[in-house]
């Protein structure tokens, strides 16, 4: 799994570009990377999942955790560029209504 982070300090946005498969084996890396980068107040975090070919309940669970943690720091989480297969897993669990997906 590859994770790259681009930071725009002026706009207070961090974009994580993720490549790989988000199952129980790989979620820890992404979770740690994002958790370590959470700022004290009011940043927006975007996870670009264009290159995520697979996601399951472990990936969803990790995203739920991250969104709650970001919310505690008055931040926002946006999920970008889900492919149809991955978006369908969100829809199946109705988590497409919980996350901001663009």
């Amino acid at each position, binding site marked *: 799994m590859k994770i790259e982070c681009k930071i725009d300090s002026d706009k207070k946005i961090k974009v994580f570009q993720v490549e790989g498969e988000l*199952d*129980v*084996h790989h979620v820890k890396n992404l979770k740690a990377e994002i958790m370590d980068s959470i700022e004290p107040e009011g940043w927006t975090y975007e996870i670009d999942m264009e290159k995520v070919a697979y996601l*399951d309940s472990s990936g*969803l669970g*990790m995203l739920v955790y991250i969104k709650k943690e970001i919310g505690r720091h008055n931040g926002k989480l946006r999920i970008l560029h889900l492919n149809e297969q991955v978006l*369908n*897993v969100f829809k*199946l*669990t109705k988590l497409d209504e919980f996350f901001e997906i663009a």
Partner: protein
Amino acid sequence: MQKRIQKMIDQMPPNATQMKMHVKGSSETLALIRRVIAACVQHLKLGDPLINDIKLATTEACTNVIKHAYKFNDAMSFELAIKTSAELFVVEVFYQDPGFVPEKIPVPNLKEIKEGGLGVYIIRSIMDHVNYITDAKSGRVRLQMVKLLNSKESTGGPGEN
């Protein structure tokens, strides 16, 4: 309907088994399992829409074995089998989980957003038949997950939308 599917599984002949794998109980193997499942579905020419559902259900099942039954102890192992007939695609997972009671698997309330507990819900949502067979004496669990082939009765699932 569920009884009918179970009867069809029970009546499958021994040569319905296309493949049986002995798998290390490590989360590292999950990607390999997905590739094997995808290759098997493609080899049997069952159509791409089935691949995503079966890969997802199988990964969820194996994740539960590795995470909950084996607690990430990779000295443990489990078996995965694929059986087919003209009407059924069956994935079976054989593992050890003494004390496991399928009836006690919680059904998630999707209005309460939680970080876990969605794996079996996803499996049940995308497969046409899911059955846990437990042997209390040996602690052995046999999980059967079935997709109906060429049938209007199939529940579909995310890969078929």
